[in-house]
C-alpha cells in the first residue's frame, strides 16, 4: 500500500510537467528547492535535536558563490555546484565548530548571531556582493551531460534538474539515517548526557551533522539562485532561516518526509491565503501556534500516529 502510493507519487512527479501550466511547474520547482533546504535543516533539528535559526547562512553562501562563479567565470553548472557546495561546507565547518559547543537556547542564539553576521557581510560588501541590491543579470551556466551541453533556462529542464537533486537528497539522507551515524545522532537528540556517558563524542557528531546540513543547504541555495536568476540578501536574512523551521514543524520534524510535506503545505497555503489577503503571516502564525501546542509531531507525524493507533486497535 505504502510502496504503491510512493511509486504513484514518484511517477506523477515525472509525468506532470508534460501536462501542467507553466505557473504550476515553476511553483513545483520552488517547492522542491525548499524541500531540500528544509530536509537539510531537519537533519539538525528533527534528527540531532538542535534548533538552528541561522541555517539560511549556508543557503546564501551556496547561492552567492554560485552567482559569483557564473558572473566571473565560464564554468558549467556541475563545477559551479560543486565549488559552491564546498564553500558551504567550509563555512559550516567554521560556524558549526563554535555553535555545537552549546545546545538548546544557546545554540539557537549562536546560529542566529552567526547567520546575521553572514547577512551583514553580504549586505555591506557592496563591491563583491552587490550589497542590498544583490547580484543579477548573469548568464545561466550550461549543464554538461555526457557529450551534450544543455541550457538550464527552460523551466521544464530546470524542474527535472531540481527533481534529480531532490531525489538524490532523499536517498542520501535515508541512507545516512539508517547508518550507525544516524543512530548516534538520534541518541544524542534523545539524551545528550547519556550519550556522552556511554562514550559518544557529542559535540563531534553534532558538528558533523551541522556540516552535512550546511552543505546540503548550500546545494539548495545554488538551485534557488539559478531558479530566481539572482542572489539577494534576503536569502541570508534570519527570516529566511525561519522558513525551514516552519516547514519542518508544519510537516513534522520527527518524520522523514515531514519537511517535504511542510514545504508543500506551506506553499499551497501561502498561495491560497495571498489570493484574498496580503496578511499571510498572521495566518501562518495562527496555524503555527496550535500546531506547536497540540500537534508537536506536525501533519505527517500526527497522521502516522493516528494510523498506528487505528491499526493497534484492530
Amino acid at each position, binding site marked *: 500500500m505504502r510502496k504503491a502510493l510512493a511509486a504513484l507519487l514518484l511517477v506523477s512527479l515525472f509525468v506532470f510537467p508534460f501536462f501542467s501550466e507553466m505557473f504550476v511547474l515553476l511553483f513545483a520547482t520552488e517547492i522542491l528547492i525548499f524541500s531540500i533546504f528544509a530536509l537539510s535543516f531537519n537533519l539538525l533539528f528533527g534528527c540531532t535535536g538542535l534548533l538552528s535559526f541561522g541555517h539560511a547562512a549556508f543557503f546564501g553562501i551556496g547561492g552567492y558563490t554560485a552567482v559569483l562563479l557564473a558572473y566571473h567565470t565560464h564554468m558549467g553548472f556541475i563545477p559551479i555546484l560543486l565549488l559552491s557546495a564546498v564553500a558551504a561546507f567550509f563555512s559550516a565547518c567554521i560556524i558549526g565548530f563554535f555553535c555545537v559547543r552549546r545546545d538548546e*537556547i544557546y545554540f*539557537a542564539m549562536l546560529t542566529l548571531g552567526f547567520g546575521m*553576521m553572514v547577512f551583514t557581510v553580504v*549586505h555591506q560588501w557592496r563591491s563583491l556582493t552587490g550589497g542590498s541590491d544583490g547580484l543579477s543579470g548573469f548568464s545561466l551556466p550550461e549543464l554538461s551531460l555526457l557529450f551534450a551541453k544543455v541550457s538550464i533556462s527552460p523551466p521544464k529542464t530546470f524542474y527535472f534538474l531540481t527533481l534529480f537533486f531532490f531525489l538524490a537528497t532523499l536517498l542520501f539522507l535515508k541512507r545516512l539515517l539508517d547508518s550507525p551515524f544516524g543512530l548516534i545522532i538520534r541518541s544524542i537528540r534523545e539524551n545528550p548526557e547519556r550519550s556522552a556517558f556511554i562514550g559518544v563524542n557529542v559535540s563531534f557528531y553534532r558538528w558533523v551533522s551541522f556540516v552535512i546540513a550546511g552543505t546540503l543547504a548550500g546545494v539548495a541555495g545554488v538551485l534557488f539562485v539559478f531558479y530566481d536568476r539572482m542572489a539577494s540578501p534576503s536569502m541570508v536574512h534570519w527570516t529566511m532561516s525561519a522558513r525551514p523551521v516552519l516547514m519542518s514543524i508544519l510537516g513534522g520534524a520527527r518524520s522523514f518526509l515531514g519537511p517535504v510535506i511542510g514545504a508543500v503545505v506551506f506553499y499551497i497555503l501561502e498561495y491560497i491565503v495571498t489570493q484574498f489577503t496580503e496578511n499571510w503571516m498572521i495566518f*501562518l502564525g495562527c496555524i503555527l501556534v496550535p500546531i506547536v501546542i497540540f500537534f508537536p509531531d506536525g501533519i505527517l507525524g500526527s497522521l502516522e500516529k493516528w494510523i498506528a493507533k487505528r491499526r493497534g486497535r484492530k
Partner: protein
Amino acid sequence: MSEITLINFLNGLCYGMLLFIISVGLTVIFGVMGVLNFAHGSFYMVGAYLALTIIEKTHNFWLALVLAPTLVGFLGAITEVLFLRLLYERDVSFQLLLTFGLLLILDDGVKLVWGAGYHSVDAPKLLAGTVNIFGTSYPVYSLFVAAAGPVVALVLWLFFTKSTYGKTIRAAAMDREMADALGVNVKAVYTAVFFLGSFLAGMAGVLAAPLRAIGPSMGDKIIIAAFIVVVVGGLGSFPGAFLGAVILGLVEAFGVQFAPKIQMALPYMLLAVILLVRPRGLLGREG
C-alpha cells in the same frame, strides 16, 4: 572631549538605555521561567503603536507612558496563561517556536490595525526642543530616555531586593518545587513575571515612539539587538543586561563614525567574541 564624541556618547547612551529597558524584560522572563520570548520585540512594537493611538487621541504622552505598557503587560499575561503555560514541560525549542508564532501574528496584526506604512509621534511639549551641553545643542527628549534607563533599573532593583513580591519571584526562579512546597503560587508568579517583562517591552516601545520611526518591522529589528544584549551580558543576569545594553548602544553610535563600512556587523562580532572568550556572557553564571 570633542563635540562629536560627546554627541555620539549621548546617542549611544540614549539607544543603550532603550535597549536596556527592552532587554531587562527579556532577561527577567528568561531568568525566572527559562523562556526566551521571540515575541518580546513585537510587544515593544505594540507598545509603540498603542502610544501612537493614545497620543493621537488624547495628545497626552504621559498617559500613553502609563497606559500602553499596562495594556502590553496584560497582552503578555494573557499569552502566558493561554499558551505558554501548556508548554513548560516540553523542550525549550517549542517555547521558542510558540513565541515565534506570536511574533508572526503580532507583526502582521499591526498592519491590519495601523496599516503597512511608517508613523511617527512628537515628543511631549515638556521635553521638546534642545538643551545646551558644553556648547552643543542636544534634544532634551533623548536625554530623558537616557535617564529613564537608570530609573527603571533602580525601581526594579528595589522591587526585587526589598519587596515581598520581588523576593517571592526570586525564590520561584531559584527553585520552583521548593517555592511551591512553601506555599508560593508559582503559576501566579509566572503570569506576573510575564506581565512585568511585557510591561517593560511596552514601556520601551512608548519611549522609542518619539525617537524612531514606528513601523511593522521595528520589533524584528530590536529583538535581535535585545538577544545580543542579553547574551553578551549573560542570560538571566540583571546587571548583565545593563552592561550589555550600554556596550551595544555605544558600539552602534561610535560605529557609524569610526567604522561606517562594518558598523552593521559590529554587534554580531561582539556577540561572537564574547561567546568565544566568555561563553556565559560578561556577568552570567553557569547553570
